[in-house]
């Protein structure tokens, strides 16, 4: 049952939102004890389900990635440093979900502040979520809890999620669900705890493309509280348009280092569709470097505020402020948080700033242009979503940080350049899902959704 059908039945009285919410929480907790998809359950959800607006999400359980603020519900972006922090306001996307009658059921697991591709970089003392198909494998990250739960849940449910460099596409691919990352500026970031503000995007994961369309229609739109959000007319994603698509597959994405089954499934999924090959040499050569330089520069300033003074983890405020801040940060930031803060601080230090941070900004402009030149000819550009199937934890342990960062090769391009993209299941390999990535020009989400429908 997809979301629209669920809402129809809830509105007609066939489904009781309160009972359904209770059931959902029970089921989720059972799953969670094995798979660790949630950081926090909303125990008030059944109570809240009594007074819902009869909107387009009436009674539907909605999980929210931990880094998206839900008023009064502990939100810590997966990090121990924000333990105990209850936001004083709802994120813009959450306001819209609530206004349509969606039920917030809890906060889903993630890599700390989105820092990871496998969701193994969890906050100090938190559990690593496990792949719904194989518990020895990763969910993908950083939105691992969201993707795992969407796949595992028997009950209708959608997950509000977030991507900076691939945090929606990667776990959606590894868990075999749809993951939509909109254009940068399409969905307000107000209430999103920042990783890299110039790339952070709130999106959605679901089992059904129609659920993606419905939720995208609801959460999109201009918000004066986020000056990077774009003032564009709303689009009807739920209305299907029959179009013909000019499609291109990126040559580099089918090259070395990409698993055979991944390539095979992608071509099979495209089926009889005519497509051409295009090349994105700059993106595949410099995308990862530019992405990490910019995102870590921004992240290192964003995380500066977590110093144990105003919110989150704190100790007795005493002594020299510098030592106090360092103490709280040393104790509560994980290794990956520290690594990224140090790398990001380095990239923007005077003497290095021009060679790293400023240069990376220029590279981003070039990469946008590289895609654009293809979008003049093609509606849709396709790559695999991830070069592989979800790796085993034992394999991840052996990766160097650099090998780890290289896993983002497919997702970094559109994320860095702000292009909308959808990760869609393309088949299976060794019992594990593979995925394809559908990319379109800025604000062409409608094309992506219609194209995905045509492949279903």
């Amino acid at each position, binding site marked *: 049952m997809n979301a629209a059908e669920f809402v129809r039945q809830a509105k007609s009285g066939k489904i009781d939102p309160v009972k359904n919410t209770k059931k959902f929480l029970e089921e989720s907790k059972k799953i969670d004890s094995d798979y660790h998809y949630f950081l926090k359950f909303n125990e008030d959800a059944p109570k809240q389900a009594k007074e819902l607006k009869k909107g387009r999400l009436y009674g539907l359980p909605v999980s929210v990635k931990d880094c*998206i*603020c839900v008023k009064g519900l502990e*939100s810590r*972006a997966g990090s121990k440093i*924000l333990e105990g*922090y209850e*936001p*004083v*306001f709802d*994120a813009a996307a959450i306001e819209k979900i609530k206004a349509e009658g969606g039920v917030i059921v809890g906060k889903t697991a993630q890599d700390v502040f989105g820092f990871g591709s496998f969701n193994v970089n969890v906050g100090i003392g938190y559990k690593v979520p496990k792949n719904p198909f194989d518990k020895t494998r990763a969910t993908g990250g950083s939105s691992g809890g969201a993707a795992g739960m969407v796949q595992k849940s028997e009950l209708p449910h959608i997950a509000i999620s977030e991507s900076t460099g691939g945090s929606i596409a990667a776990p959606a691919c590894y868990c075999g669900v749809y993951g939509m990352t909109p254009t940068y500026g399409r969905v307000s*970031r*107000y*209430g*999103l*705890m*920042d990783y*890299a*503000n*110039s790339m952070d995007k709130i999106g959605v994961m679901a089992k059904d493309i129609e659920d993606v369309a419905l939720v995208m229609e609801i959460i999109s739109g201009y918000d*004066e*509280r*986020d*000056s*990077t959000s774009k003032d564009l007319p709303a689009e009807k994603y739920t209305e299907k348009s029959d179009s013909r698509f000019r499609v291109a597959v990126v040559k580099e994405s089918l090259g070395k280092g990409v698993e055979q089954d991944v390539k095979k499934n992608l071509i099979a999924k495209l089926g009889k569709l005519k497509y051409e090959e295009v090349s994105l040499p700059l993106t595949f050569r410099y995308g990862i470097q530019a992405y990490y330089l910019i995102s870590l*520069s*921004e992240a*290192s*300033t964003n995380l*500066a*505020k977590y*110093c144990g*003074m*105003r*919110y989150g983890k704190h100790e007795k*405020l*005493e002594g020299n*402020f*510098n030592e106090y*801040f360092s103490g709280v940060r040393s104790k509560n930031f994980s290794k990956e948080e520290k690594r990224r803060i140090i790398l990001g*601080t380095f990239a*923007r*230090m*005077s003497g290095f*700033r021009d060679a790293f*941070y400023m240069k990376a*900004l220029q590279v981003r402009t070039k990469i946008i242009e590289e895609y654009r030149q293809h979008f003049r000819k093609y509606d849709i550009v396709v790559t695999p979503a991830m070069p592989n199937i979800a790796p085993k934890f034992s394999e991840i342990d052996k990766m160097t940080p650099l090998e780890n960062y290289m896993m983002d090769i497919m997702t970094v391009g559109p994320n860095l350049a702000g292009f909308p993209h959808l990760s869609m299941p393309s088949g299976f390999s060794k019992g594990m899902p593979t995925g394809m990535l559908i990319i379109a020009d800025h604000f062409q989400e409608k094309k992506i959704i219609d194209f995905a429908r045509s492949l279903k």
Partner: protein
Amino acid sequence: MKGEVVIGLEVHAELNTESKLFCACPTQGEEEPNTRTCPVCLGHPGSKPVANKKAVEHAAKLAMALNCRLAKQVIFSRKSYFYPDLAKNYQITQYEVPIGENGSIDISGKRIRIKRLHIEEDPASMIHPGGIGKAGYVLVDYNRSGNPLAEIVTEPDIASPEEAREFLKALITLLRYLGAFDPSKNIIKADANISIKETGYKRAEIKNITGFREIEKALEYEIARQKHEGISSQETRSWDAEKGMTQLLRKKETEEDYGYIFDPDLVPIDIEREELEKKLPELPDKKRRRYTKEYRLSEDDARILAGEFSLAQIFEKAVEKTRPVLAARWIRGELMRVLNYNKIDTSEMKINQAQFISLLQLLEKKKITDATAQKILEKLAVDDIDVESYVKKEKLGAVSDLRMIEKYCREAIAENLQAVSDYKSGKDIALNFILGSVMRKSGGKADPKEVKETLKKLINL
């Protein structure tokens, strides 16, 4: 060629806006600590800044008024450093492209170059109970956090504390003309870099000097101190206005690294230069030229009146109802004398403009004498009085009744026959003696000109 004293200023002027630079919190009002705050100015996770258009407009106009090269866009950056007064541990400011660059202000024939002008947010205020380092803790009040500031950085063109004061006054005047600054609400602060020839121009930076009066004092003190004590290395000092002295904060060894990045939460804002030009008010230079041309004021009068916001304001109101030359003479002469006497700076005067103008009108219509007007003005400068009813109540109206004047004159002539004959024999000065007598009889309320005429007429009969 460097002079004896080399001074450069970094001025922080709080811009006059209703709300803060990046959120809707009011900039003024409730004084209870940490009440004028919201998730944005407290830096809560998930909150996002949105730039205040009014603050941007004020700063852009200031850039134009300072003859700066105006940027095409306002681009904000993050300046990172850890400090308890920064809600985010970075300050949103401007770095690569400030809103204005390469400007200048002219003060008494000298040009002070402006290096850059940029917009930034004010940090929170820190309260040190019992003084810095005394209590072992500080209190932080975020009410001020996020108030809009314009930072104006000069080249080291200032050669004396007096010039520094003049510069600051000229800057405040511009800000007030633009409506970008209200001295009753907004604070202006300066950091001064100062070095002197005798120590080989080793530089000290004095932080946190509030207002143009203090700047002169602080710099005078620091020059004397450097001459007397010398200066070992680059020093950062603070100005203690109460004690009237600077104190060493730290010796600077290395430049701090703020790791600037563009603030990715704030999109560049286009500056509509032509639109702003239309909104730009008449500035001192133009005013000065208009005053000499339109009102036939002397160069000197025009420069002084146009160069001070409050004087220009009262002058322009006055010329709607009285003769410009009379108004200029009384503002520059008597009003400034009275303010001076009461140690009120022209920029801080609170004289009731309407009452001052009705005083000028009474003068113009000869209903009161100069002497009476001076006395009333002295009162008006410190006390809000209604001039017309005061004149009536105190019976200060000029004696314009010619019969009364003639009566006093006849009496005076009769009482001072010696003086009369001296005058007749050519000693013009003797007439003043008789005049004095008439003025006494009238209680100072007769118009001296009128009396002189009458006396001459009567004596020459």
